[in-house]
């Protein structure tokens, strides 16, 4: 199949490649760019393991063709750490609050939570649950993911994080 040249910015770096028109963005990221932090968990855009940030929006990269991302600004899990290489507030929150187990949904979950906190810096528990409804987790039961995002929100807002009483 004839290939098309694509160019985009991924985690701040200009990248390019040759793709078939049918190549999914997630395959371009994982296989052409060899950034394997973005995962694939279903065929129907339900699970959110492939979530990336595209032009300031959370998108499921299994439902976007690479050619549609021409010229786009993309952030993946590999671009989530602080500039000095330390864990971001969200990454730290997931670890401190035990917001992950097998780690497979985690990249999509963190990338989604990153955008959620841009959209709503002080979300309630309900806001968070609705905000991550496009991302499935089979291990944690979400309760500690909610806490992880609350932890990050508090840290970003410069306030002390208080765990809700159980």
């Amino acid at each position, binding site marked *: 199949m004839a290939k098309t040249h694509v160019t985009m910015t991924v985690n701040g770096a200009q990248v390019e490649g040759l793709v078939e028109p049918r190549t999914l963005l997630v395959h371009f990221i994982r296989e052409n760019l060899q950034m394997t932090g973005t995962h694939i968990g279903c*065929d129907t855009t339900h699970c959110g393991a492939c979530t990336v940030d595209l032009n300031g929006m959370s998108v499921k990269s299994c439902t976007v063709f690479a050619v549609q991302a021409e010229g786009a600004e993309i952030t993946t899990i590999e671009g989530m750490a602080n500039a000095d290489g330390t864990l971001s507030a969200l990454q730290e929150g997931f670890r401190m609050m035990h917001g992950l187990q097998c780690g497979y949904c985690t990249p999509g979950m963190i990338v989604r939570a990153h955008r959620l906190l841009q959209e709503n810096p002080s979300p309630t528990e309900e806001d968070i649950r609705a905000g991550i*409804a496009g991302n499935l987790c089979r291990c944690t039961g979400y309760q500690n993911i909610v806490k992880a995002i609350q932890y990050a929100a508090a840290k970003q807002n410069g306030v002390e994080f208080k765990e809700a009483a159980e």
Partner: protein
Amino acid sequence: MNDMTPTREEREARLEGMGCKRKRVEDIRFTQGKGNYVDDVKLPGMLHGDFVRSPHAHARVKAINTEAALKVPGVLAVITAETLKTVNLAWMPTLAGDVQMVLADGKVLFQNQEVAFVVATDRYAADDGINAVEVEYEPLPPLVDPFKAMAPDAPVLREDIKDKSDGAHGPRKHYNHIFEWTVGDKDLTDVAFRKAEVTIKELISYQRVHPSPLETCQCVCSFDKIKGELTIWGTFQAPHVIRTVVALIAKLPEQKIHVISPDIGGGFGNKVGAYPGYICAAVASIVTGKPVKWVEDRMENLTTTSFARDYHMTTEIAATKEGKVTGLRVHVLADHGAFDACADPSKWPAGFFNIVTGSYDFPTAHLAVDGVYTNKAPGGVAYRCSFRVTEAAYCIERGMDILAQKLNMDPAELRLKNFVRPEQFPYHSALGWEYDSGDYHTAMTKAMETVDYAGLRREQAARREAFKRGETREIMGIGVSFFTEIVGAGPSKNCDILGIAMFDSCEIRLHPTGAGIARMGTKSQGQGHETTWAQIIATEIGIPADNIMVEEGNTDTAPYGLGTYGSRSTPVAGAAIAMAARKIKAKAQMIAAYKLEVHEDDLEWDIDGFRVKGLPEKFLGMKDICWLAYNSPPPGMEPGLEAVSYYDPPNMTYPFGAYICVMDIDVDTGVYKVRRFYALDDCGTRINPMIIEGQVHGGLTEAFAIAMGQEIHYDEAGNVLGGSFMDFFLPTAVETPHWETDFTVTPSPHHPIGAKGVGESPNVGGVPAFSNAVNDAFSFLGSVHIQMPHDFWRNWQAAKDLGLIREPAAA
């Protein structure tokens, strides 16, 4: 001592040993997208394989034409059963003693069965190749309903064994029959029922579901023709077992097979078995001389690689008028699909279903299980449970509620009346188990007090009256569940897989500077072994957990073990870890005695080293002992400080717990709201409370999904209707209830550290708690048992069946 000397508390805290909420080691890489899962493995020249699958549930395969497919750009080979026959691999043995087609050999027996394997340069080309393979089918009548499997005129499914009167587990009654398994005293149980003042009998079905971890099953196989070695990266919960199975069926020397389980994206039982994809990828690599990757998509995962449950349990309980149980009789019709690929220890065709007497002191019981073939996917894995333990717990916990309803007794009171009492442990159950330890009354009472059970029942009574007066259309259910699990398979006297005893193992090697590496035969899929195993070692030998690297999953470096499933890691490998650590400690004590110039018996252990009894200033820490082991061991002693332990457990462990669910259901819409869910778990000694709580949250969420929505349903033609996340319920953060967790601690008396295992308890206990809540809500309206899953539609249907829904007036 000067002021800089750390206090005992500081020394203990520095170890981060057992009981500490240690943050996970794994998270550093997982939160940065630096995990290494199977699909992340990319080798030079790697090809991709994918399956042509059957659209029919039951059909003869008349012809497979691969000519057009081989002309598709990028397609290099199409493997069929005929190809596999040349290497004697068209069929493979299953863990249950049956055989299974790797690729359709003459006929297909379930929808989406593997028919041909297309190998191509990339996954897109493989897909093009699939579309170009032409298969000619002649449809046959499908058998979908297990209750019709043994009818005289039922279609013959397994022509390969239709005349075989004996299967792997004894005589067969019919050509679609697999086994009959019976346990217990039939005569005594019959007498109990004849004499019973009260009996109940109900068909309790546990629907077919699927573990669906977020990462599907996948592998990369690479055959090195020069060395004659096969390396397999795969999503394996039991990598050593896979190596042995490959050696046996591919006739390769076992030392030339390297199996690597890298990071695994959840397992829940799905990744225990051996599937056609693994065989085909290995054969394809041998045929092409290149590495071959096989990655399931979600549809393939839900419809082919395994399923769980599909148990239809006719349950009878005999009791006195006062509610004392006197007998239990259960018959199970087990739908195993097209091949018996159940993942149970080999001698247990229905797993440990004979734990079905649960937490109650039944004087006698009898159990019979009939396994049958149908035109459905093969499997029968333990989805987040020890083998068939969820089914057993659901059976008895629904049964006890139904009995309570018949006796007009409170279900919690009925349970308290019949619990095995603390002084009865070790307790011998009527169906053959020896329960190690338990204190059921304390756990149940704590749960009831915490949720104000009596208050909830008062509220329910008032709301029922209000419903009857027509003041509300909402009904309230209180679901009580008290489960006893049986985990930690298992003692070699009765547990093996294909003849290999179900021990587990640990090797610890300490380095001169007070650090070390530990390797086990288990394989974490999210349980956090890299974190918790180091905590056991830290407490046992006083080296900080941070200084112990834990490694699992590489069969070349890890000691042989049977893997991670059935909550066996902590009961079996956890014990091996403690035993290996104690061997090291014993040698360390000799080194310390020599250095401190005292007899070994004059030393006592003190957190992180040895101290001379009565002379607290004479102390030698483990860090220094590590150095001495390599630098100046006592005369005649071998240098080094390492140990290995293979642990054959003397018994299973028996975790238990009390769960209470409070739910409100709108009868007009069937919409439910889980108002409260409280889970008290007793898993014996607690290694990392943070991880235990996480396991309980996750297991409860899976229980919620099963009880309230999951089903792999088939229509009459054998079309599978639960084949994507569109149709198969995985709850999001929005639907998932809030979980309250609690605990009691009753250590296992036979386990070196007293731990019992916890990962699966919440699924085992959670499902009956939810189902009992729904059934309890409807019970005052005359309903006895409503089958799972209790989704909105079924709740509405239940209300309609009870005459609660007002039909709209005709226009």
